[in-house]
């Protein structure tokens, strides 16, 4: 393999890994909610869309800068998170998990409708002030093309994960979150306010959705197709395990990288467009070896 091909490979790999980071960001919201409340939150994609559209809509309609629009977006997402917990999930406590899953699909419809009702269904642009240009320093040194935007996005993801790790491990509410994730009933017994904790989890997931929405939105434009990002996050989840934060990140990296490599190196032979299903088949094959994903908790089944 000559050096040019190697450089090309490295470029594709890097682009894939960085896209994977963005997938991981969406998957992170899923994982937190699943871990803490056992709800498979299909509405995460809709929340990403809602968050991005809210911020873009506020800054467009009222002509305010992002410095004002983003904090408003954060507040809106936190309120939304608590509302979802109060109105949708609390009455459904103790129901079968399929029922909860269906409720989140209903929620998806509702949030998508609400977002477009409030802000219209036109494509909006979101300018974070980061340019999507190749990172010059790296090109000069090695000839590998990496987008500056992707690098900064990866940096933001890293910060977010670090912040979440701090929240989970060093604060009182974080300890409550982990307790609830471990065992609902035991947490209730020692006096942890379960509903409040779930509300917090949904709020945090809403915040993560906002970050993901801003990054995806400024890259692809804020439009309805943002909701499909959630579908990209599902194979990341099954690969990494539904209950593991590191799993979401590692899974995201693997899916992102293999997806791009497959599209570039296998795609032309089979007619292209394999990005849509390749991650799923990959995750599926992987599950055959390890049914609970990379870092998922091993499920012990008793009779």
């Amino acid at each position, binding site marked *: 393999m000559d050096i040019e091909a190697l450089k090309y490979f490295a470029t594709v790999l890097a682009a894939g890994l960085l896209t994977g980071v963005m997938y991981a960001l969406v998957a992170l919201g899923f994982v937190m909610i699943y871990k803490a409340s056992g709800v498979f939150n299909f509405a995460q994609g809709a929340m990403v869309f809602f968050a991005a559209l809210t911020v873009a809509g506020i800054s467009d309609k009222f002509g305010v800068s992002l410095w004002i629009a983003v904090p408003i977006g954060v507040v809106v997402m936190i309120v939304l998170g608590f509302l979802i917990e109060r109105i949708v999930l609390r009455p459904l406590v103790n129901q079968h998990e*399929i029922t909860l899953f269906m*409720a989140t*699909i*209903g929620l998806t419809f*509702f949030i998508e409708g609400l977002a*477009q*009702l409030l802000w219209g269904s036109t494509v909006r642009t979101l300018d974070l002030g980061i340019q999507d240009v190749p990172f010059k320093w790296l090109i000069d040194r090695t000839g590998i093309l990496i987008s500056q935007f992707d690098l900064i996005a990866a940096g933001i993801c890293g910060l977010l994960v670090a912040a979440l790790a701090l929240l989970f491990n060093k604060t009182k509410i974080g300890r409550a979150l982990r307790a609830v994730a471990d065992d609902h009933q035991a947490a209730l017994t020692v006096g942890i306010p379960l509903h409040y904790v779930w509300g917090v989890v949904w709020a945090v997931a809403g915040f993560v959705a906002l970050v993901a929405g801003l990054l995806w939105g400024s890259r692809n434009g804020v439009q309805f197709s943002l909701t499909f990002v959630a579908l990209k996050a599902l194979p990341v989840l099954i690969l990494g395990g539904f209950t593991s934060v590191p799993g979401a990140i590692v899974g995201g990296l693997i899916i992102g990288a293999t997806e791009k490599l497959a599209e570039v190196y296998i795609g032309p032979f089979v007619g292209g467009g394999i990005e849509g299903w390749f991650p*799923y088949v990959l995750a599926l094959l992987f599950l055959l070896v390890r*049914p609970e994903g990379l870092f998922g908790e091993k499920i012990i089944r008793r009779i």
Partner: protein
Amino acid sequence: MIYREAGQYKTTYVSDSQIFPIAQDRYAVAALLVIAFLLIPLFATQYIFSAILTPFLILALATLGLNILTGYAGQLSLGTAAFMAVGAFGSFNFMTRVDGMPALVAFILGGICAALVGILFGLPSLRIRGFYLAASTLATQFFVLWALSKVPWFTNYSTSGVITTQKVQILGFKFDTPQSEYLLVLAIVAVMALMAKNMVRSNVGRSWMAVRDMDVAAEVIGFRIMRTKLTAFAVSSFYCGVAGALYAYCYLGTVEPEAYSLDLSFRILFMVIIGGVGSILGSFLGAGFIVLLPVALSIIVHYTGLPNSVTSNLELMVFGALIIFFLIVEPHGLARLWQIGKEKLRLWPFPH
């Protein structure tokens, strides 16, 4: 005391093992069939046939298929529309490539194609459970649709990707009016629904339920897990495949991969949940509800006189909210309401 089985003695094995052991149920089903076959064609308009009744029956059949898999065998699937697509394209290819292929046989063969694909994609269920399985069934959805749109052989090298279906003709009779299409669909759906009703109380159905309730325990008492799960996938996909073929031939009039999107899979899953998981009757109630809801909503919203963009979003919101509402009020679905009603009828007019 209208609905009571008191006094209905079973004196032969045949009468003891009827599909509907209670006489009132038999009369009700017979009356329903008479109404559907004879009365409705007299009164319904073209619009009602082609926009409501036919899609309702076809989607009820697909719902039935998914209900067999999810409700009876406990395997959650998000790939229903893919199996329908396989059925539709299977039938299309048999009709195109084999001269003089009877339509009914083509539908059945299409269903068998779907069943084979179902077995293939059901294999992971032997290792994977719950939501991991649900998410992996999305692989079916995306892969099958991709294959159908990328491999030109499936579409008979059509350049547009949208193919008009052949006319359905059985024994020289052409099914080309909405009314005749409705009757054809109704006949197929009625037969298959009765078959399903019978199947779920046979040893096959009972083994599905045993595996659903606890697969490890079922294995211990001697059910073969692999066979049980794969027959569930096969039968379910067969139903979905036939439904998909009917969807293409009797409703859309075209065969195209785009008609079998993930959205359709979700709608069918909704029908199962709203109707009642693990209930044949529920499949019909759920399909009726989800087919009628958007129609009713659009009529109501139409009268409010709001602009179009607002109404479509409002419809989405109301649809989502109603689904959540239903799940909160009756998580076991419409079939459960019907069951409660029957219990009440049994005692009426006495309170206990």
